[in-house]
């Protein structure tokens, strides 16, 4: 199994763990992740306005370069995945954006959304299979009660993300089961952690992150897992109380015995 890999900026700095354990676990599972040459920042947020082209170009460059290499493009950061997946969707469906973006980029072959964009979780679920993953686990995390924190960006808008049922997702819970732990289902797992608002309105970020951890705690979670560095930051730094939060890849590496 060979994929192109888009780590994203944060994974090279503040979220090195997310990147490191992704690579380690992939290696242990026989998944080859080839880092895309010359990738650029995805832009961190998807530009929703129909006349925003320039802010989508860096994602399109990465998508086109994955297409040229002939592999599906794997991301692991929720924000990168959200932006790249939605830009790709635009390149499949919005003729105006396709035309203007291609005119601007002047690629050798114009890009029309050919690349398949996968989140690392989707690779584990759909390409490897959670049953197979469970077989490869060396140190099952038996007895740990883990709350899955999805956040917003992986799930919504569900029509474009096509990731999981946006109100009743199961992929992270299935993942938690595969690594031998017990998933804790709580209602705020798909509610906002505060996101970038931590810079604009700290009290709001505190309120949102606290609501998530409170809901998880009330349902008996010992810790949370997430795929997003900003979620991790908000839940760790902004939420009241002291709920441990990990990248899902860290626990994966632990279960596979490669941490």
């Amino acid at each position, binding site marked *: 199994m060979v994929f192109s890999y888009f780590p994203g900026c944060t994974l090279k700095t503040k979220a090195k763990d997310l990147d490191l354990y992704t690579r380690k676990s992939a290696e242990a599972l026989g998944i080859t992740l080839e880092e895309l040459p010359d990738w650029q920042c995805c832009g961190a947020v998807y530009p929703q306005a129909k006349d925003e082209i320039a802010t989508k170009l860096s994602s399109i460059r990465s998508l086109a370069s994955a297409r040229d290499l002939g592999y599906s493009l794997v991301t692991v950061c929720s924000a990168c995945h959200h932006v790249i997946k939605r830009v790709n969707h635009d390149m499949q469906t919005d003729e105006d954006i396709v035309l203007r973006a291609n005119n601007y980029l002047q690629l050798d072959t114009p890009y029309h959304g050919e690349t398949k964009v996968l989140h690392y979780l989707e690779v584990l679920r759909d390409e490897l299979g959670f049953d197979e993953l469970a077989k490869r686990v060396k140190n099952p995390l038996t007895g740990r009660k883990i709350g899955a924190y999805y956040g917003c960006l992986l799930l919504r808008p569900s029509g474009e993300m096509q990731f999981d049922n946006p109100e009743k997702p199961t992929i992270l819970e299935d993942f938690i089961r595969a690594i031998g732990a017990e998933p804790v*289902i709580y*209602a705020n797992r798909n509610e906002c952690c505060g996101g970038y608002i931590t810079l604009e309105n700290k009290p709001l970020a505190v309120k949102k992150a606290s609501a998530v951890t409170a809901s998880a705690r*009330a*349902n008996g979670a010992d810790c949370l897992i997430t795929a997003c560095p900003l979620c991790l930051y908000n839940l760790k730094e902004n939420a009241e109380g002291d709920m441990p939060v990990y990248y899902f890849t860290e626990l994966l590496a632990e279960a596979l015995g490669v941490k």
Partner: protein
Amino acid sequence: MQRIGVFVCWCGTNIAATVDVKAVAEALGKEPGVVFATDYQYMCSQAGQDMIRDAIKEHNLGGVVICSCSPRMHETTFRKTAEKAGLNPYMVEIANIREQCSWIHKDMPTATEKAVILGRAAIAKVHLNAPLTAGESPVTKRALVIGGGIAGIQTALDIADAGFPVDIVEKKPTIGGKMTQIDKTFPTLDCAACILTPKMVEAAQNENIRIFSYSEVDSVKGFVGNFHATIRRKARYVKEDVCTGCGLCTEKCPQKKVPNEFNLGLDNRRAIYIPFAQAVPKVATIDPNYCTMLKSGKCGVCAKVCTAGAIDYKQKDEFIEEDYGAIVVATGFNPIKLDRYDEYAYSQSPDVVTSLEFERLMNAAGPTAGTLLRPSDGEHPHTLVFVQCVGSRETRDCGKPYCSKICCMYTAKHAMLCREKYPDTEVYVFYIDVRTPGKNFDEFYRRAVEEYGVHYIKGMVGKVVPENGKLKVQASDLLSNEQIHIDADMVILAAAIEPDESARSIATMLTASMDTNDFFTEAHPKLRPVESPTAGIFLSGVCQGPKDIPETVAQAGAAASKVIGLLAKDHLMCNPCVAEANELMCNGCSSCEKVCPYGAITYSDKEFPGPNRTRVLRRVASVNPAVCQGCGACTVACPSGAMDLKGFSTSQIMAEVDAICK
């Protein structure tokens, strides 16, 4: 060449004022084949009709053209006139020189010229007319009702009362449908079981009604008056005629952990069960998915305790073949699945329930014996939040674009009953609009607000978070423009209703049409609301669109009266203007079959003379004249020109085109 007579009507001055009727008669008299042409003041009058009749006899006419008003007005009149004179009624053609000529033109030469051309076209057509005889088909005097809910029961009772035998086919072990699960009915608050169960018994005891419970319609063939159905009686592993319904087996069965669908999974039943005390037929049924005996061959407790000896583990599905003259669809509805609405925490908390589940929790025969208790801990709830329009009026894929129609009223009912029985409760209803068109409906809703103190809040619930034994409800109050937070004990979701999942396959089987929401389409939305466009298929209840119990019963009665009208006839007259396949030209391609909206075309292998005195077997189309409605779609779809429509044949229309363009 036909001997044709032309009759030009003045219609008083209606035609004669702008059309020179004498000139028209004279001009048309010169057309080839015309042996007689005349004009008269009122052709439709007795004198005018006598004139036509006499002319037919006197001139031995083979075809008649009447230049007069629209055929929609008097075609039938003149056909009858011709028939009385011994001419086939379909040898009459009308040239519409009033509505489509004299009334729209002011200039006499222009109008006269056009009248002549219209007359010529009619003459050209009548030359190619062939005598047609309307066929007759016998009517089997028995009706089939698919679905045994209140709609099906009412329809069956009404048909049976008129003296015709009726079969009800119900897929569940008992008839009664959704209404059996309902506690009270709006706006009168009478008990649903008290008004429904007597009807169920009445149906069971009626000599004209046969009930096939735990059965499904496997196939339907035929056409109006002559349907042939195969009914599959699923094996219930209990002899229906032997079981006394004592219920001992359902108490002794060791398999206790089967979700009880009658209580929507809120409690458990045994593997052998009678859905509820008033079930009709009151016969036990073994659930093969849970019965240890059927699964592993070890157990047999029910057979041991059954003193009547009704248990039969070897029972197989049985098939019954029967003929019917009419079929009534009464397949009903289900609440939608709430998988995509988990923002309301339906799958996360047992205290979030659908309205139908809430009915069971309020029902004296329900899992809590009528005491409202929180499913999670059996405690008395104090704060209840009702959410309306869950999935209704929604354009997302997971929802339904229509209004489910019954939710506003049953929610008002639930809220009112809660406040009445438990005055210590706070009851909130979140609504987008409160829709209460119906007799005494709005008064009912207002009573909930004014007398019972139910809090109606215009807005929607956005999120329900189960936390520390409470349901934290986050919602909008649009009138005060606030986001409000309620710590509730129970949340009740008014889930949209959708047609039963069996509806689509039944529609396909019956060639009845459906809309995009899988509701059956009526023959005319205003004027034929209980008939399907397919002749002989009638609609009763929610299968046609959301409706409440009174409306369902009214429609059920209307459908029954249509069925009775049909079954009262010994024979059905068919429209003779139907399609016909020329078997020598047909290449068996199925193009016509695919476009036929009525399923009137079938294929069969027939022997034809081949070269050198051989016989060859070819697949050819044939049209069932009793089913064909004569639209002509097949005639155009046919690539070899084998399909033609009587009365509007290709050559006839071509002749009209030629006459007009000349």
